[in-house]
C-alpha cells in the first residue's frame, strides 16, 4: 500500500515535470540556457581563460545550432506571457523579422561547425559572427524583467 502510494506520488510528480517541460515558455528558456552554457565555453576561449580545445569549441557551436531546431515553434500564440517569460511582444507583432533573426543564428552556427576552427585565430572569426547574433536578437526580441 505504501509502495503504491509512493509510486502514485512519483508518477504524479514526474508527469507534473513533463507538463512543465511541455510549456513553450519553459522549453524556449531551456533552449536559451543551453546556448548560454555553450557561450560560456566559447567566450572563455576567446578571452584566453581556458586553453584552446578544438573539440570543445565544435561541440559548443553544435549545441547552439541544435538549440535553433524548432526554436520558432516554441513561441506559439498564447505564450506571450507567463513563466517569467522575457519574450518581447515584437516576436508576435514582427514574426518575419524574428524568424529571419533565428535563421541567421542557425546559419552562422552551422557555418562555424562546418569551419571546425583548429586554432584561436580561425576561431575568433567564427566566434565574432556567431556572438553578434545574441545582441542583435535580444535588442529587439527580448525585454528585461529582472
Amino acid at each position, binding site marked *: 500500500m505504501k509502495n503504491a502510494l509512493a509510486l502514485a506520488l512519483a508518477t504524479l510528480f514526474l508527469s507534473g515535470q513533463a507538463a512543465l517541460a511541455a510549456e513553450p515558455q519553459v522549453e524556449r528558456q531551456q533552449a536559451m540556457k543551453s546556448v548560454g552554457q555553450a557561450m560560456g565555453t566559447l567566450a572563455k576561449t576567446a578571452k584566453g581563460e581556458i586553453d584552446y580545445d578544438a573539440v570543445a569549441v565544435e561541440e559548443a557551436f553544435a549545441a547552439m545550432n541544435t538549440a535553433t531546431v524548432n526554436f520558432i515553434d516554441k513561441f506559439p500564440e498564447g505564450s506571450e506571457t507567463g513563466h517569467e517569460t522575457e519574450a518581447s511582444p515584437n516576436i508576435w507583432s514582427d514574426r518575419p523579422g524574428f524568424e529571419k533573426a533565428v535563421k541567421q543564428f542557425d546559419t552562422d552556427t552551422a557555418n562555424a561547425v562546418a569551419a571546425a576552427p583548429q586554432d584561436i585565430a580561425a576561431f575568433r572569426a567564427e566566434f565574432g559572427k556567431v556572438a553578434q547574433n545574441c545582441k*542583435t536578437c535580444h535588442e529587439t526580441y527580448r525585454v*528585461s524583467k529582472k
Partner: protein
Amino acid sequence: MRRLFGLLVLIAVAAAVVLWFLSAPGKLDEADFAGLAEPDLARGEEMFWAGGCASCHAAPGAKGDDKLLLSGGLAIESDFGTFHAPNISPDKDAGIGNWTFRQFANAMKKGTSPQGTHLYPSFPYTSYTRMTMSDLNDMWGYLQTLPASDNVAPDHALGFPFNIRRAVGLWNLLYLRDGPVIVFDSPDDAVSRGQYLVEGPGHCGECHTPRSPIGGLEFGEWMAGATNPDGEGIIPNITPDGSIKSWSAGDIAYYLESGFTPDFDTAGGSMVSVQENMARLPASDREAIAAYLKAIPGRPNGYPARGG
C-alpha cells in the same frame, strides 16, 4: 463680492507673472565660454560615444558607420506622449548646421534652444549639464565633421499639459541640477572619472533611476532601476544591491566592452546600442564606470515587484 473677485483676479495675474518669470529658459554666462581652445576632435569623438548621441539621433537600427549620420528619427513612446529625436547632423536646414557653439552649449547645459525656448528633457540635458565646457567644445567640433542629412524629423506629439513648452521651466526648477548626484568623501581617480562619465555624458541615470509622476528623476533612488520609460519590462537596478550585485568591477567593464554578462547572457533592448557606444571608449573609461558603480550606495529595486 465684487472687490473679492477683483482681488482674486489680481492674485491670479500676479501668480501668472511670477510663474512666467520662474519658467524662463536659462542661459550660460559669457564667462563660461572663456579660455576655450580649438576643439580636439579625437577627444570630441570619445565624448560623442560617451554621450550616446547616435543611440537616439541616428536612424533606428543603424549599425557601424551609419551611426554617424545623425538624421534623427527615433520615436520615444513615453507616458507623456511620443518624442521624436531631431536631426542633429550639420545640415543647415534640417539639422543644426546653422547653430553656433554658444547655442549648442546652451542646449546641452540648460536645455534651451537657439530660439530661446525650452527643449524637452527626453533630450537628457539634465545629465549633459554636468559636462565640462571643454568636453562640449570638443564634442561640438567633432559633430561638425559628420555627414549632413536632409531628413526632416517629425515634431513631438505630446498630450496636455505636457505640450506646454514653457512649463518645462518650472520642471527645470525641480529637476535640473548641475552638481554631483552622489557625494563621495575621498573618491580615487577612477571613481571620479566614472562619476563624471555616468552622471554626465553617459546619462545612465536617465533610464536606470525611477521617475516621479511628472517625469523627474528620484535622486534618492539613484540607479535603483526603473520601469522602462519607452516600452515593456524594466531597466535593471545597477547599484551594488541590484541585479549586478555578484558582478566584479572586471565583470562590469567586460560587459560594457563585449555585451556579455558573467553568465554569458547578453545586453538586450536599448542597452545594446549603449553597450556598443561604451565599447568605443578607452578601456580605462569602462573600468572607471565599473569603479563608480561599485562605489555608489546600494538600493532596493526602484521598480515594483513583478506579479505572476
